[in-house]
């Protein structure tokens, strides 16, 4: 049985690990990007990144001071009976993590800009629950600061735009972002769906480990094509020039209206913060990072 305390403690641990360390696949991608660079200025930024990662691990502090806002994707087994309010438990976990990790208090009222406590407030954290067969529970956490959030985009392209349109949407977003989204970036793309599900797909895409190939061969090919074009922009680490502007492009698709082609682009920064917990023998375990 999953108690509220066990659930809350797990989420606090997810937040702590996500904020203070990088997933292994992202670290590996950054190292590969560094090795590709010959330009001393580009190499310098990678050295700073690695120094930061080492220090954050040693001191157990957040990699970046913008500890972001949070999206939880939850797969809830239909046969699992939870005796507590998931939303309340997630809010409590976020408040606790804010105090303990600690995290910067980032949430405000959108109009008055009045600060709200403990990274909560109406709609924060963002929670998306999906029912699944069985009695397991899977929690995925995505942390995003304003650097990348402010370059999230939704385009309603010409319906017959095809792969070119998707590529254009990504390149336009990256050109606007430049060095402001802390490149090299990971790019999540949601193709199809509708105006609210395309962005959701784009964020879900960011949950995939970089070394795992897209099971959809057509999308895998498009991912590689767009990566190549994006790296051709020459933006590089911190926007000061370099060979790698994107570590990976991750595309998810969904059916859409015959007269629409929604394309959403979600960027993740080089300190790509994400975490995953799953049930193992009825108990939640943080498996990533």
């Amino acid at each position, binding site marked *: 049985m999953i108690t509220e305390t066990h659930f809350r403690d797990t989420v606090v641990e997810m937040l702590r690990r996500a904020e203070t360390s990088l997933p292994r696949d992202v670290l590996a991608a950054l190292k590969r990007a560094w090795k590709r660079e010959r330009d001393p*200025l580009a190499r*310098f*930024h990678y050295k*700073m*990144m690695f*120094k*930061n990662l080492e*220090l*954050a691990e040693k*001191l157990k*502090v*957040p*990699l*970046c*001071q*913008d*500890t972001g806002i949070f999206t939880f994707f939850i797969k809830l087994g239909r046969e699992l009976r939870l005796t507590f309010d998931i939303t309340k438990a997630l809010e409590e976990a976020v408040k606790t993590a804010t105090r303990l990790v*600690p*995290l*910067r*208090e980032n949430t405000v009222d959108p109009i008055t800009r009045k*600060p709200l406590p403990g990274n909560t407030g109406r709609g924060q954290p963002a929670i998306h629950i999906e029912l699944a067969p069985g009695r397991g529970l899977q929690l995925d956490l995505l942390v995003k600061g*304003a*650097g990348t959030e*402010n370059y999230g985009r939704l385009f309603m392209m010409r319906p017959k735009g095809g792969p070119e349109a998707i590529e254009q949407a990504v390149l336009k977003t990256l050109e606007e972002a*430049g*060095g*402001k*989204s*802390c490149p090299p970036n990971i790019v999540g793309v949601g193709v199809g769906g509708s105006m609210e599900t395309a962005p959701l797909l784009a964020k879900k895409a960011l949950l995939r480990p970089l070394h795992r190939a897209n099971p959809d061969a057509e999308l895998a090919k498009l991912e590689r094509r767009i990566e190549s074009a994006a790296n*051709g*922009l*020459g*933006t*590089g*680490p*911190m*926007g*000061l*020039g*370099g060979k790698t502007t994107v570590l990976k492009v991750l595309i998810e698709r969904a059916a859409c209206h015959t007269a629409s082609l929604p394309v959403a682009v979600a960027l993740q*920064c*080089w*300190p790509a913060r994400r975490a995953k917990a799953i049930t193992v023998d009825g108990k939640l375990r943080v498996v990533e990072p």
Partner: protein
Amino acid sequence: MVTARDKVYSRVIAGERPPIDLQGGVVYHCGPLARRTPRGWQVISAGPTTSARLDPMQVDFVRATGVRALIGKGGVGEEVAKNLARLGCIYLAFTGGAGALAASQVEEVENIFWEELGPEAIWVLRVRDFGPMVVAVDLRGNNLFLRRKTRTNAK
């Protein structure tokens, strides 16, 4: 150096005199993550924020305060860069996301002004060997953030 970003900039532009003399000083675009301890403030993570958000207020802010160096990430707009150079102010790029590293180079929080702004307050930080940083905009208006465009054009 002192931190200043969106809310502080807005107040200065609105005509409010900063509570500390910034003439000839260094402004760091940052909202630190810090914790109050019995021994004083402990800065936990303090990397730069996106300077370009301040572009609409940047030149007026520098003119009003007499600041000589800005530290941030992502650069400033082309027109802003040219005007900064005219005002004798340079822009230093600190690697974005390197919050733990930046915090480790802060020796002490000497003071906080406009504390009600929380992370957006004016934090007066004594630092040692802050960086290394890149002079991204110099006194001649050379702008390294335009570098990538040249690279793309040259292909």
